[in-house]
């Protein structure tokens, strides 16, 4: 298990290099010139050239990338072209918001999804269909639309929760929780379907296996067969999917943070992309990539813990 983690981490380094280089190239293709954008249309050619040199934009791309890498090693991701703040400062402030949102949504979706999926697999019938219908809605309702509906109903119609904005936990724990409810509900609902469907399918598959018959034939209590043996086997595909869902939620935060005006990584990414704030976009890519690598690692570890056949290899 430790060697698995070690191998994964060693692999993560070239991965980060390649992904950041790729994104560096991609981002450089974005039409528009940051120097021009910062200065506005009225600046002189001399000012423009000076700024380009200051930003390192006059150098070939690989040198720009090399400079950036050198900075990364020293924990320096450059300075935002717009606010002049260090990129790490900006992104670290926003990291917590996004992670809080994702973790809360994942927790809510996993607990509800596994419970509903198991219920649907075991009971079937009318209850199963009701579960399926709710789960299906999670996939069908676009999160931006759901966000708007929730705002319309619970913020505008009945003002129970704030429509937009973020309250830091240190400022007011109650306000923090209050502000979290609608965005987390939106995110969790979108993640619910996949968990329910995968749980149900995995449970149906496991329940049809021979060892379940043997456990029944030898008088194991139904509760233990279901909750201990079937669920533990069914958890293997579900956990794989949880990792994928985490990454999906990372993507979804872009939209949800934008709609709810939350200061997270996602809304910052949209902002930076529209402003051509290159250092910030590069930083975003790095942060997103590191998060994804870590989540994949955690998924693998969980997979190994659950499935002994994988663990030994």
């Amino acid at each position, binding site marked *: 298990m430790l060697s698995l983690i070690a191998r994964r981490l060693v692999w993560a380094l070239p991965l980060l290099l390649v992904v950041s280089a790729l994104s560096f190239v991609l981002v450089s293709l974005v039409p528009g010139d940051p120097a021009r954008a910062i200065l506005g249309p009225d600046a002189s050619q001399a000012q423009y050239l000076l700024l380009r040199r200051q930003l390192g934009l006059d150098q070939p791309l690989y040198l720009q990338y090399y400079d950036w890498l050198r900075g990364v090693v020293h924990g320096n991701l450059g300075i935002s072209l717009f606010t002049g703040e260090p990129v790490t400062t900006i992104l670290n402030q926003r990291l917590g918001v996004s992670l809080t949102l994702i973790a809360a949504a994942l927790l809510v979706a996993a607990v509800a999804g596994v419970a509903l999926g198991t219920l649907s697999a075991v009971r079937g019938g009318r209850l199963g269909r009701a579960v399926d219908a709710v789960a299906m809605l999670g996939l069908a309702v676009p999160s931006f639309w759901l966000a708007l509906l929730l705002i319309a109903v619970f913020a505008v119609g009945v003002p129970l929760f704030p429509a937009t904005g973020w309250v830091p936990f240190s400022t007011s724990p109650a306000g923090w929780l209050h502000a979290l409810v609608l965005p987390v509900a939106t995110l969790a609902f979108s993640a619910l379907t996949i968990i329910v469907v995968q749980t149900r399918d995995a449970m149906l598959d496991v329940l049809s296996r021979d060892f379940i018959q043997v456990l029944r034939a030898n008088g194991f209590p139904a509760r233990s067969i279901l909750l201990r043996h079937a669920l533990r086997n069914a958890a293997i595909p579900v956990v794989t999917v949880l990792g994928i869902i985490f990454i999906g939620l990372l993507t979804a935060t872009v939209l949800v943070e934008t709609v709810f005006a939350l200061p997270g990584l996602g809304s910052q990414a949209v902002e930076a992309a529209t402003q051509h704030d290159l250092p910030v976009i590069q930083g975003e890519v790095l942060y997103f990539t590191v998060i994804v690598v870590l989540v*994949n690692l955690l998924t693998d570890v969980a997979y190994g813990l659950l499935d002994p056949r994988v663990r030994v290899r």
Partner: protein
Amino acid sequence: MSSTARAQSGRWRQLRQPAAAAALAWLALVLTGAVFASLLAPDNPAAADLNSVLAGPSAHHLLGTDALGYDVLSRLMYGGQTALIGVAEAVAVCLLVGVPLGLAAGYLGGWPDRVISRVSDLVLAIPAVIVLLVVVSIFASNQTAAMLMFGLLGAPVMMRITRASTLTVRGEQFIDAAWVSGLSQLRILRSHVLPRILSTVIVQISLFAPVALLMECTLCFLGLGPAPPQPSWGGAVYDASQVIQRDPWLLVPSGLVIAATILAFGIVGNALRDTSVAAWSPTQLSPKTKTKTKTKTKTKPKTQPAPGPDAGAAPGLLRLDGLTIEIPSRSGAAVTVVQDVSFSIGPGESVGVVGESSCGKTMTARGILGLLPGAGRVAAGRCWFDGQELTSLTPRQLNAVRGRKIGFVAQEPMVSLDPTGTVGGLIAEAVRHHRGGSRQQAHNRAIELLASVRLPEPAAVARRYPHQLSGGMAQRAAIALALAGDPALLIADEPTTALDVTVQDGILGLLHELRRERGLSILLISHDWGVVTDVCDRIVVMYAGQVVEQGSTEELFARPRHPYTEGLLAANPHLAQAQATLATIRGTVPAPAHWPAGCHFHPRCPYATQQCGQEAVPLVTAGPDSMSRCLHIDRVGTAGGRYAS
């Protein structure tokens, strides 16, 4: 657990059909509306009518108008074009890239697996949404580029899921068997692996297509789709959000169209999956369903119940009395699979049930345990065990019998233990459930049990997982599990069939010893004479759902009193004389729905007369310790070489 996967998926199929039809109809409607928008749309989508802004639904504007006076319905129809094309592009790329790579990685393993997995990790680690934002900026508002990229970014998920299920199938022994038997790799992939993973791929498409649609709408909602005033679904939601307080109605048509289309994709995907799952899902044991089967009881046992308790048997520990089992067929009619089965097992006695496949041996065992598949039920007869009548017990009472009074050992040792837990943990759980005690006591008892099935180093075996055991060791562990509740009767269903010949003897020897040491009664189901003669005092021969002969092992061998027994003995390679041609019984066992009238065996019987096909034949006493279901008992054995081919 009150219902089974199979029964449930059957029900699902029926009840879902209207939903699937409605979903298909909706998709067809959306498709028609989008493709023929120029013919069908009531209005020009780009014709702003500033005189009727934010008008509600009317005869002229069926879904009303938006803030610029555009006809909402027309804009949704034109917007559907871009949406559906975008989905098709993404799904195609995702499938074409993800499935072949997943198959290759899961099936080939080794370096192809490593390379593909690494590259897919790499792609997964690319922040999809940023890439899409960048792509949309590079190819200004070019949706095709964005959706193709989205399909590519979705491919690793498809690849992973394909790989995971390929690995599962690959790990099963039949693939090795196919490989050993010389099938080409591509052939194995196509005919053994692909069908098994198909349902997983379909589920993944049914999950990915709506996600692609969602992404298309999301880009449009963020203003990154086709430039306004070109119509799009996501753009329509954005327009509505700008006037949410003045005209909340506007949020409804666009949002509902998106939601309904995504929902329809999902429902169709589910319906597809259910059919593909049902096509290969194995039958499943389940507690007797409480729900009444709607089937008409068409086939009643026509034969007379066997005359009283059978001849010469010890007062039964287990006594079956006219047990008849019915299983509803696909069409819903009940089919009798076990008919009027009576025999008994005394304390410490060992009885073998012999017959070809699908003669009802296993079904009889399941009937005793109350674990009939699907909506199967005991239609008639009684099953007495130690003074209790099992068929009338509640599921809870029956569960208390299983394990504590009757233990069960299945055919395939490698798949009959929970793969995710240690052998010791599983047995200890059974011990604690049946006998109580602390964790430590249960653990110690588990090791004792493993030692009692003659496993060397029982403490080490207890720490292992099932996949770390050989077939013979796993079967010993499975027997230890069945003994955890200290049962009086052990039902072993073909316990040696899946094992190597050298290992078989060890298992049979173990059953012998267990019987002697514990006074255990054994019901051994097998198609192999060698196995039953080794272990059993008495033998019950079953054919096409009925007991056709029973008697002591010596008597049965010395003088078979049913033509089927005679044929089976003649066809047995263990008993055949060297160099003699092995006899065969012509024909095959008929399926339960096609049992012939009269004697079930008469179409295959060398002694058959016209009379045999007319009336049901009763089981009668045929000798001092023998019963037979034959009209020509006296002639059996006179045919001599008739079975020889």
